[in-house]
């Protein structure tokens, strides 16, 4: 056990700090860390910033050098995220492309696909969105009904996806489709890559309880993509999708803890200003959230050590998504307790606008987190069955 930087890690940290000090100025610095993977605040500025990150290969940090990455290991990725959060740099916009699609592409893609897509993700020329969930395929994701059939050299896609974050910003979608019409469940699915800007795709925003509309419904009515735009073998899409979900539940969220540190610090400031920090119940809650925040970090470090030393994440990894979403939800409730009566109004100016403040935003938005990317109940099934080895619950058609 040793939590100090090695000399090479210290040098890398210095490089990151120096880069951020040089570039995080002007509008970029003024923006601060507002926004998030599904929050469009400051979008245009964030796109510009992300391009700067891409130019200097901070986007694709972990990719192999042959695809333009820095080939950074897990410790370097942590260091980058730590310094990034410490500098209060703008929230990243490439979560779906860089965070979810790119690692899946590196694992399953052909050489041609990697060379086609990775550079454009790095250059922030193409943004991605994720097409998994459907109205009847939520927790039961294998019940995918969106179909794709081959028509000459093209796939033709028909169906509906839902909860598609930032679909209206995206240039491409990775979309899980049923390519074998006779199949059921997780058989016969394929992981297709489809351009978003075409006639066969209609995007309808879904207004959320927060008042904004980062989620969408995406309707496919004869949308087309080239025959080669399938990731992994045709009919093997489930396996590829599970890898994406693994990234979404695992390492992709590692940087969130650092954002939460900032949210906590801001809330603590507010609690001091309003005097709430001297209330014994609020103090206890704030301390409990702080405990949870630090434990999240320790869990992350243990998981990453396992990943580095043994090539597999330990049991701490499977609890990651369940842990942080549960914590964040509780944090949102604490935040509203700190706000007190001020929580009652969303816009001080009045006038019919629905503009939640930062505490109200966390309070509401965190309700989505325990649902998406596998609800907490699904996470507990996974932990129970795959980590603890408990027997599966019999499903319809199975006998006990």
């Amino acid at each position, binding site marked *: 056990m040793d939590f100090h930087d090695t000399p090479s890690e210290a040098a890398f940290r210095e490089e990151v700090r120096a880069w951020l000090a040089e570039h995080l100025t002007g509008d970029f610095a003024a923006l601060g860390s507002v926004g998030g993977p599904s929050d469009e605040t400051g979008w245009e500025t964030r796109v510009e910033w992300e391009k700067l990150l891409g130019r200097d290969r901070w986007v694709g940090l972990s990719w192999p050098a042959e695809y333009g990455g820095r080939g950074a290991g897990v410790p370097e990725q942590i260091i980058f995220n730590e310094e990034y959060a410490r500098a209060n740099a703008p929230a990243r916009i490439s979560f779906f492309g860089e965070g979810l699609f790119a690692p899946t592409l590196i694992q399953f893609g052909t050489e041609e696909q990697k060379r086609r897509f990775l550079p454009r993700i790095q250059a922030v020329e193409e943004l991605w969105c994720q097409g998994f969930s459907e109205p009847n395929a939520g927790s039961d994701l294998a019940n995918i009904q969106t179909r794709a059939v081959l028509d000459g050299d093209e796939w033709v896609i028909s169906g509906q996806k839902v909860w598609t974050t930032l679909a209206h910003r995206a240039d491409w979608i990775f979309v899980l489709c049923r390519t074998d019409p006779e199949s059921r469940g997780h058989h016969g699915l394929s992981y297709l890559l489809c351009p978003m800007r075409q006639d066969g795709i209609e995007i309808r925003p879904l207004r959320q309880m927060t008042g904004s509309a980062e989620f969408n419904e995406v309707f496919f009515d004869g949308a087309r993509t080239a025959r080669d735009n399938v990731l992994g073998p045709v009919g093997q899409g489930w396996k590829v999708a599970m890898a994406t979900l693994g990234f979404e539940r695992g390492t992709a969220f590692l940087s969130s803890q650092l954002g939460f540190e900032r949210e906590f610090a801001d809330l603590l400031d507010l609690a001091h200003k309003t005097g709430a920090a001297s209330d014994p119940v609020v103090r206890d809650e704030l301390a409990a959230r702080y405990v949870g925040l630090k434990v999240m970090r*320790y869990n992350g470090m243990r998981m990453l*050590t396992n990943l580095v030393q043994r090539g597999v994440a330990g049991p701490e990894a499977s609890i990651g998504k*369940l842990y942080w979403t549960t914590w964040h939800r509780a944090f949102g409730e604490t935040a509203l307790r700190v706000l007190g009566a001020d929580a009652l109004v969303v816009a001080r100016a009045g006038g019919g606008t629905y503009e939640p403040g930062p505490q109200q935003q966390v309070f509401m938005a965190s309700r989505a987190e325990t649902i998406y990317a596998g609800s907490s109940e699904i996470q*507990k*099934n996974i932990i*129970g069955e795959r980590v*603890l080895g*408990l027997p599966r*619950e019999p499903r319809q058609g199975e006998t006990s």
Partner: protein
Amino acid sequence: MNFAFSEEQEELRRTVRQFLEAKSPETEVRRLMETTEGYDPSVWKQMGQELGLQSIAVPEAYGGQGFTFIELCIVLEEMGRVLLCAPYYSSVVLAANAILNAGTEEQKQALLPGIASGDTIATLAFTEPNGKWDVTGITLEATEQGGSWSLSGEKMFVLDGHTADLIVVVARTAGTSGTDGISFFTVRGDADGLTRTPLSTMDMTRKQAKLEFSGVAAEPLGEPGSGWPAYSKTLDQAAIALANEMMGGAQFVLDMSVQYAKDRVQFGRPIGSFQAIKHKCADMLLEVESGKSAAYYAAWAAAEDNDEVPVVSALAKAYCSEAYFHAAAENIQIHGGIGFTWEHPAHLYFKRAKSSEIFLGDATYHRELLAQRIGI
């Protein structure tokens, strides 16, 4: 960054586990918990002579092996796993650290080798009938007359206080309050004027005593009146050690629950296939793994003796207390009726969990401590 035990540390864990599984099976725990002394002197001797467990974290200069707090915590986690009945925590964690933190060089030379060899059983008497864990709870008065000190007052909940050969007492000098005047003294277990009464403890696997001091002659440990920093540090180390010990028990009850959920059949299938039970087990795993992360990180901070110790000790004690108790309580629920019987071991862990949660101050107390230390 490296958050893993070394191969040597894993080997230590295996050795200690093997020894404790042989020497402290449930039958022995049940036999010893019914005795007043609450430990087996021959096993205690073997722990010292064969494995050197009492000396593990004592510096070599004082007869120890000079390993770090991390190794000490590995040993404690294994002891917590089997509910070892022995005065190890009182002697090796509480007393030895108090002496290391407060004692002069001569006193360390004189007192620590005996603890390290296991020949001396020692403890720390700090809590009083007022039941307060903070410094305001220390009221037992030390008075000086002609260069010699004597103690009068009462100590409660003193771990192994009735069997200890050496008692380190936390007292205050006359007319002081708060952190002023805090002083350490040492007293022999058989000192004149000291009345020791064994208590019937809820957790029968860990013994406590009431100690009444009536003008007991005492030797100052360090400078009388200036013991607060050493006392505070001792309590932080004790909390970290206890957090690690708790996680051994917590993992054990989780394993017990999972095994039972696989074996026990109701409605024609194992109860672990029902989400109601499966999700309980998943929650337990989350809390046990998280508690370990906190406890291990805190052990590292204590080994480094760095400035994170005050914060991470409060943090680890708060989290691990609740995680252990929750796991131990769910273990009973998952077992159903059998889990409520005297013959089933579930209640032994349930009681140890609650007792450990309360000892040194419960989770709420430690969150307030944490709040003060991080500036809430």
